[in-house]
């Protein structure tokens, strides 16, 4: 009823009397109101004066006699353009209408029409809602009371323009000049919320009252709503927390339907958190039980250990973040500095992301809500690639064709593509030049891109539907949800469905006890078929189907020349045709993963500030997978061929592997983790309540177990479920004289099991002391013990600890006069967190078993010991200010940090004479320094229009300060080119050759540090390379703007990543035969190849090296990497993207009432628009390999989402 009340109360064009007359019942009530309450005379006058003014400019002309109501309504709709909303059953009992009016106002006409009908109406916006009248007006008064009252400011003067609404309902009233508000149909047990900028929001229970007067207090006394941050161990008022916490805007988080990934949804919303965008950032969880986007909090502070933060859900660390439904998340806290994270001990150096799921609210009636969306991603966009088209490709093939270097008879086991066959046929004199040319010309005219898209890809979409219920009483409340997530990828035949249930319950059996039980169950069911994903890197003229739609054989792709294939086929009697499209249904993989996560939280108040808190978590993730490869698959036929002995076509072939059935693989995985945490907390007030002391201490034990076992059956018949028994011993000794192979050795293990169990025991303590409510100091300490490293030895870690302080400046007396400052606080923290060097024992050589049926099983060394390793420690200093000014118009925080990591763990080159090329060791010391800023501003806030902005900015710069042990190989080009860390430079480093152009042979030259220009292989040392920058953005963050006009809102989220560099994708083919790898759908070349050096003099116009067919000549004459890894091919990876833009519409409740819906919202979203990029090569840095310069084709260009949220 948003508009309805606004029109009455605010607009001078409104006519209160006429509007109120719309409904008799309201009218009666209004009369009562006006006379019973002594309203200020001015108001009364105004109300009366307004009577004559028309409520609506719309007029109606009608002349009806005994017309059907529907007909009359339809005429009015046509004349006014208003929508008339009613259900057929509502107007069933309506009588005939007789009326004659000319240019009468709509509302009057309606009043007349409905006077004698069992119906009532209301007008809002441009809609007329028609509903049934109640049996009598008296009942009507009771069920539709008009809640009213006056809102006062701190001096008890009426406050105009304050927003009044009922918690959980969409309707909002705004107080008029006299501070008066009216709300129609308030729920008897609802809660009234009154807010005004600069004042503290007040909430009052309605409890059957009709009149509620409220006095607001100025917000500067306690300006902000209490923001709670959660460390997983304790909940803190953000205002009082000394540590650095980040919180994403949960509204944007909830709306980002373009991805179901929790980490991706936080991109650009938390200062200091860099989400690694694009496919490159997607990594499996530790146990491979799902994937999620990776993020880095405050820069790289570890070199080889995982850089992802740890994830905590409802107080317990979990491995599989993908089991959580984004719709169930109530709150996320990102712990950034030592003070925030040190309580997580040895594993917290990368930061912690703490997620709390939704819970029920005491006192609410049971509320249901539905949220659903569909995001359509479509097919991959090949146009972003830089490969040749068919005619360019054929031209390149003609130019590089060299039968002298690559004679026909040396190609028996090579890929000979159709164009290549034509060229060889011509050179061998089998066909004439003109026949060859015409064949090649016809290939030049074919473009396979559209066919590939049609045949191998489908339109991808993702949809998530969640239905939830919540409610409860003071002793019990709950939140439960059921959701279905369907991920329909662009891969043919792939399925990926996730079903999730969550149930969060809180039980308060007595005032002193609170028990929370949180359960999340997630079931992921998926599968694939035998599809391939060819793209523009495939030979551009090769079609998969001929003109009449028959699937084509692409035999040559498997790398056997026609003669070889014919011979193999004849001897083995195995068909070696290969048609990719026919293989689609010849095999599958299926997986079914269940994740169960339960957490119990028990809080008992023992006495006088002493309380006990127990957290008990259990996660179990059983998973099953199976895969079947039919013997009809080419790969299976080829394998069989390699185990087939037939020396001539006359001899019956002997098959050493089953030639029927298929290969059936099953896998079972099991993971479980449990956590038991007991802690005691004590809070007391000292100095007559001026100071507050809070002490907590606790113990935690944890176990993690995971196992994976797999079985492989051969010759498996899916229907009969029979399989063949193999002679593994004979096969592992090798089959001699097999076709296409001298000897084939079969080392497949029919059964395999891997398992790992790790245990931790930790002790921790927390302390905080607040003086005069202005000065807060706190500290934490934690020590972890684990079975992974020998106890009692030096490998055990020193404890992780932190301490910090906060000064709430705005609470000082001298700040009281500064009215414009709402809040100001200064924080300083310091602490140490660490990383264990060992996933496994590092002080000993790690061995691995090898099964060998001929000489018996054996062991070999997989990783050599390095007993000079020590723990990686990160010392973090953080200081920040939190502020709020201009009565809530602008607030934010700024943080500066210094992270100093000593004994950085990573891969260091070893002297190869030790028997190891590299070793896991302490690299050196790295510093990370950075600045973070989060700003939230309310730029415009009027009842009709609002504009607010969120700005998140992070700057991070790291530098490798020292190297523990310099190895001479670090001075080689090969090492420097691939090094992630180089002393004195920001990591991860990117180096390049200093390019000096081509010489008169088209060979690339470089300039060394001393100025010499050379093309000699290995002429450069590390110091001859130029540092181009780092592949990690220095600046990143986001900018969100939300515009609201009435019920419509538009949110645009931009993200930016600035300051990184990347290699661009250049041609890498300069020698060898233009061919493809057998079995892969490659073969095409970068279009830059066309611009290469071809003749002397070209060096003046191109930087792209010449092509030299003979690999030996090319390799000894020059190094083409001097070009591909040259400085001219390193470009800036800075870019700004419009990540998503969302248009949403809040349906007004009056409309919804007829549908028994409390609130509804529909929204549409799209995104992934490049706003600005620093490179001129049309590279989207999110899809570029920064170090190797490979360009990947995005799976989609712009996703489009439609979604709806409904509460009822």
């Amino acid at each position, binding site marked *: 009823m948003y508009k309805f009340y606004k029109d009455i109360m605010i607009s001078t064009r409104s006519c209160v009397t006429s509007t109120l007359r719309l409904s008799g019942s309201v009218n009666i009530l209004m009369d009562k109101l006006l006379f019973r309450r002594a309203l200020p005379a001015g108001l009364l006058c105004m109300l009366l004066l307004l009577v004559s003014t028309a409520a609506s400019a719309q007029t109606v002309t009608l002349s009806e006699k005994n017309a059907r109501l529907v007909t009359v309504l339809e005429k009015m709709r046509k004349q006014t353009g208003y929508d008339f909303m009613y259900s057929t059953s509502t107007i069933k009992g309506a009588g005939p209408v007789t009326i004659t009016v000319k240019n009468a106002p709509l509302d009057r006409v309606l009043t007349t029409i409905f006077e004698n009908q069992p119906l009532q109406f209301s007008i809002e916006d441009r809609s007329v809602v028609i509903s049934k009248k109640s049996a009598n007006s008296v009942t009507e008064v009771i069920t539709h009371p008009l809640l009213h009252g006056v809102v006062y400011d701190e001096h008890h003067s009426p406050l105009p323009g304050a927003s009044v609404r009922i918690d959980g309902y969409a309707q909002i009233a705004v107080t008029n000049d006299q501070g008066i508000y009216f709300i129609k149909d308030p729920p008897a047990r609802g809660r009234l919320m009154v807010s005004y900028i600069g004042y503290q929001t007040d909430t009052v229970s309605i409890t059957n009252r009709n009149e509620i007067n409220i006095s607001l207090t100025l917000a500067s006394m306690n300006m902000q709503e209490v923001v709670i941050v959660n460390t997983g161990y304790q909940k803190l008022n953000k205002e009082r927390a000394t540590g650095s916490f980040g919180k994403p805007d949960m509204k944007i988080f909830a709306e980002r339907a373009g991805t179901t990934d929790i980490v991706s949804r936080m991109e650009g919303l938390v200062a200091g958190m860099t989400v690694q965008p694009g496919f490159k950032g997607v990594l499996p969880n530790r146990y491979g039980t799902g994937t999620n986007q990776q993020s880095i909090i405050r820069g790289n502070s570890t070199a080889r250990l995982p850089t992802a933060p740890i994830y905590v859900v409802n107080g317990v660390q979990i491995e599989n973040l993908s089991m959580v439904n984004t719709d169930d998340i109530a709150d996320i806290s990102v712990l950034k500095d030592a003070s925030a994270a040190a309580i997580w001990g040895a594993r917290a150096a990368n930061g912690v992301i703490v997620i709390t799921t939704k819970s029920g609210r005491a006192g609410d009636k049971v509320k249901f809500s539905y949220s659903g969306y569909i995001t359509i991603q479509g097919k991959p966009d090949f146009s972003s690639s830089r490969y040749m088209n068919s005619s360019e490709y054929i031209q390149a093939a003609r130019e590089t064709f060299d039968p002298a270097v690559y004679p026909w008879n040396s190609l028996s086991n090579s890929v000979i593509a159709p164009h290549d066959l034509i060229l060889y046929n011509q050179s061998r004199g089998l066909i004439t030049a003109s026949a060859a040319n015409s064949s090649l010309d016809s290939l030049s005219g074919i473009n396979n891109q559209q066919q590939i898209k049609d045949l191998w890809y489908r339109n991808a979409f993702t949809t998530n539907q969640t239905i939830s219920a919540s409610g409860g009483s003071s002793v019990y409340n709950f939140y439960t949800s059921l959701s279905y997530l369907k991920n329909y990828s662009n891969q043919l035949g792939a399925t990926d469905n996730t079903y999730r249930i969550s149930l969060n319950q809180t039980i308060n059996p007595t005032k002193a006890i609170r028990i929370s039980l949180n359960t999340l169950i997630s079931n992921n069911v998926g599968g694939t078929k035998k599809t391939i994903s060819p793209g523009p890197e495939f030979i551009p003229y090769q079609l998969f189907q001929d003109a009449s739609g028959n699937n084509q054989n692409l035999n040559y792709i498997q790398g056997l020349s026609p003669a070889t294939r014919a011979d193999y086929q004849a001897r083995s009697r195995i068909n070696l045709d290969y048609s990719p499209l026919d293989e689609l249904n010849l095999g599958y993989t299926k997986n079914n993963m269940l994740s169960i996560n339960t957490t119990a939280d028990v809080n008992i108040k023992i006495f006088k500030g002493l309380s006990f808190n127990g957290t008990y978590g259990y996660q179990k993730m059983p998973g099953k997978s199976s895969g079947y490869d039919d013997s009809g698959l080419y790969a299976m036929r080829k394998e069989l061929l390699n185990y087939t002995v037939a020396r001539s076509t006359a001899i019956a072939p002997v098959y050493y592997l089953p030639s029927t059935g298929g290969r059936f693989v099953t896998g079972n995985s099991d993971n479980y983790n449990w956590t038991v945490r007991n802690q005691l907390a004590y809070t007391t007030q000292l100095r007559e309540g001026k100071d507050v002391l809070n002490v907590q201490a606790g113990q935690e034990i944890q176990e993690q177990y995971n196992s994976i076992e797999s079985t492989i059956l051969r010759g498996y018949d899916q229907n009969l479920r029979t399989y063949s028994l193999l002679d593994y011993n004979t096969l592992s000794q090798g089959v001699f004289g097999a076709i296409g192979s001298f000897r084939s050795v079969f080392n497949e293990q029919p059964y395999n099991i891997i*398992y790992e169990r790790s245990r931790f025991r930790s002790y921790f303590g927390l302390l905080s002391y607040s003086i005069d409510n202005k000065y807060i100091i706190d500290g934490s300490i934690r020590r972890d013990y684990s079975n992974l490293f020998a106890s009692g030895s030096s490998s055990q870690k020193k404890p992780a600890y932190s301490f910090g302080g906060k000064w709430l400046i705005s609470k000082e007396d001298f700040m009281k006069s500064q009215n414009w400052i709402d809040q100001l606080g200064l924080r300083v923290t310091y602490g140490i967190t660490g990383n264990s060097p060992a996933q496994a024992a590092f002080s000993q050589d790690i061995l691995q078993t090898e099964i060998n049926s001929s000489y018996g099983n054996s062991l070999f060394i997989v990783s050599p010991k390095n007993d000079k390793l020590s723990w990686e420690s990160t010392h973090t200093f953080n200081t920040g200010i939190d502020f709020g000014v201009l009565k809530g118009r602008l607030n934010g925080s700024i943080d500066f940090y210094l992270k100093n990591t000593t004994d950085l763990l990573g891969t260091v080159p070893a002297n190869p004479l030790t*028997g190891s090329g590299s070793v896991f060791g302490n690299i050196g010391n790295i510093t990370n320094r950075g600045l973070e800023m989060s700003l939230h501003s309310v730029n415009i806030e009027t009842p009709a229009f609002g504009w607010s902005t969120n700005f998140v900015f992070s700057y991070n710069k790291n530098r490798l300060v020292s190297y523990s042990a310099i190895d001479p*190989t670090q001075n080689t080009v090969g090492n420097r080119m691939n090094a992630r860390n180089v002393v004195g430079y920001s990591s991860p480093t990117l180096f390049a050759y200093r390019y000096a152009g081509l010489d008169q042979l088209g060979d690339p030259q470089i300039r060394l540090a001393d100025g010499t220009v050379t093309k000699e292989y290995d002429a450069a040392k590390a110091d001859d390379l130029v540092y181009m920058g780092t592949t990690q953005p220095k600046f990143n963050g986001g900018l969100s703007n939300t515009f609201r006009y009435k019920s419509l809102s538009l949110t645009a989220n931009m993200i930016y990543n600035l300051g990184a560099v990347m290699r661009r994708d250049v041609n890498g083919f300069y020698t060898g035969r233009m061919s493809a790898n057998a079995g892969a759908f490659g073969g095409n070349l970068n279009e830059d190849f066309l611009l290469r050096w071809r003749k002397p003099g070209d060096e003046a116009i191109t930087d792209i090296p010449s092509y030299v067919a003979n690999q030996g000549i090319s390799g000894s004459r020059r190094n083409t990497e001097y070009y591909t890894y040259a400085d001219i091919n390193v470009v800036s990876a800075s870019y700004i993207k419009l990540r998503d833009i969302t248009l949403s519409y809040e349906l007004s409740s009056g409309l919804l009432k007829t549908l028994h819906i409390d609130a509804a919202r529909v929204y549409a979203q799209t995104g992934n628009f490049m706003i600005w990029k620093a490179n001129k090569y049309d590279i989207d840095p999110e899809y570029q390999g920064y170090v190797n310069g490979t360009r990947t084709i995005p799976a989609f260009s712009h996703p489009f989402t439609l979604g709806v949220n409904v509460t009822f």
Partner: protein
Amino acid sequence: MNKHTLITIIILLGLCTSACKKDFLNLTPQGTQVAATTEDYRQLMNNKRLFVYDFAGGWQGQVLMGDDVAAEESRFSSARSVSQKAFQWADDIFQSDDRDWTQELYLTNLYTLNKVIAEIGQSTGGTEEQKKVVLGEAYASRAWLYFQFINFFGKSYVKATAGTDPGFPIITSSDVTVKTFSRASVQEVYDFIETDFKNAIAALPVTSESAVHFNRAAAKGLLAKVYLFSGRNTEALQLFNEAFADNAASGSPARLYDYNAEFAAGGKFDPVSSSGPANSPGINYLDVTESVIAKSFYNTSYAGNGYGNDFIVLSSKTTALYDSADLRLNFYAAQFPYQEPNPSGRLAKIGVQYSKFGLQISELYLLRAECKARLNDLGGALADLLVLRNARMPASAAMVPASAAATQTALLAFIFDEREREFAAEGYRWFDMRREAADPLFAAKTYTHSVYGDDGNVTTYTLRKERLTMRLPYFITASNPNMPNNP
């Protein structure tokens, strides 16, 4: 719920967690393994990497460097750069981005052997006898590795200069953190090898677990070879004789295949097809019939690592050495890999995937014959030669020509030719070239390599004398910039 109940709950919970205390962390991390028992060390010595270089390594490079081979240009030009350079006797075969698998694999094995030697004494659960076997094997394996290193990177042994000629660093610890190494002299390395073999001989049993594990005969035979290479002929002969005796006494003595029988109808190697003689040891590294100590390396076409021998054919000189009745010719045909005929008619090895380079019984005969010839026991030498030749060809052809048997130098030359016939295209020849070049008993020779073009043109490469000693590969010099390389 009253206060007493609450306190009881807390105490119970507290007890529960502390009850788990004692053994909670006393759990070996599963899924990883460390060496502790004698059996663990025995299994480390059973590691396939110590006796089969099955994808790269071994003497792949040396195969290309012997003058017993030539190249077909049609295959040569498409070969990898390292293979071409090895064949051309280039100074440096490896560039920064090439991997020298041979040395990488050897050095990794050296780490394992040093670990076993250092730790086997403290291992648990084994008898002293069992530990001795493992220790002896590790010593012998390390000595064998060092014999490889010194023959790759040290000059051929010449007593007068061995004390100053740079050899290879002597590494006896398994420690990845060591940063600097320096090259020991050729003499020091030979002494080190001798000590290791002596330690091995003292510890090894007459019969080993299998032929891929050292037994006493193998250690003695190889030490004798080392003596022969360093001119200690008398000591060598003594040990050769002991090695033959120990081999005979072993539970499964190495023995020569009699090709006359095996190639006859129904014999083991019958029939010979385009994929080579049936069931020959060359296709099965598990066939250790002729091995005193069996070590094998992958010696066929390029398969993604190493060199590949796709372009190799026998040199005309080597082809000419064979008597047409020599049954060893059954292992050669005018064929490229994958059974493709070579129209030029030049021979290449067929039906061979692995070549053996530990110690073959045939080489033991040839080494003892050479040793006897050097000690001027020409008759004894002829007798050993005849044992081998009789197993390789019909008796009618087996006799050593009188001219060859007449003088020490002629007989030595014949023995070297016999080595070439026995081990053609298996890498042995390059090591013999090193010895010939440094041996006054041999006439000075110029070694050349021919590349045959399809058009009949022949490109010739000539070996510089310095290249009989390989230069340290890039990956070693890069990490050891102060280590002098060979000229």
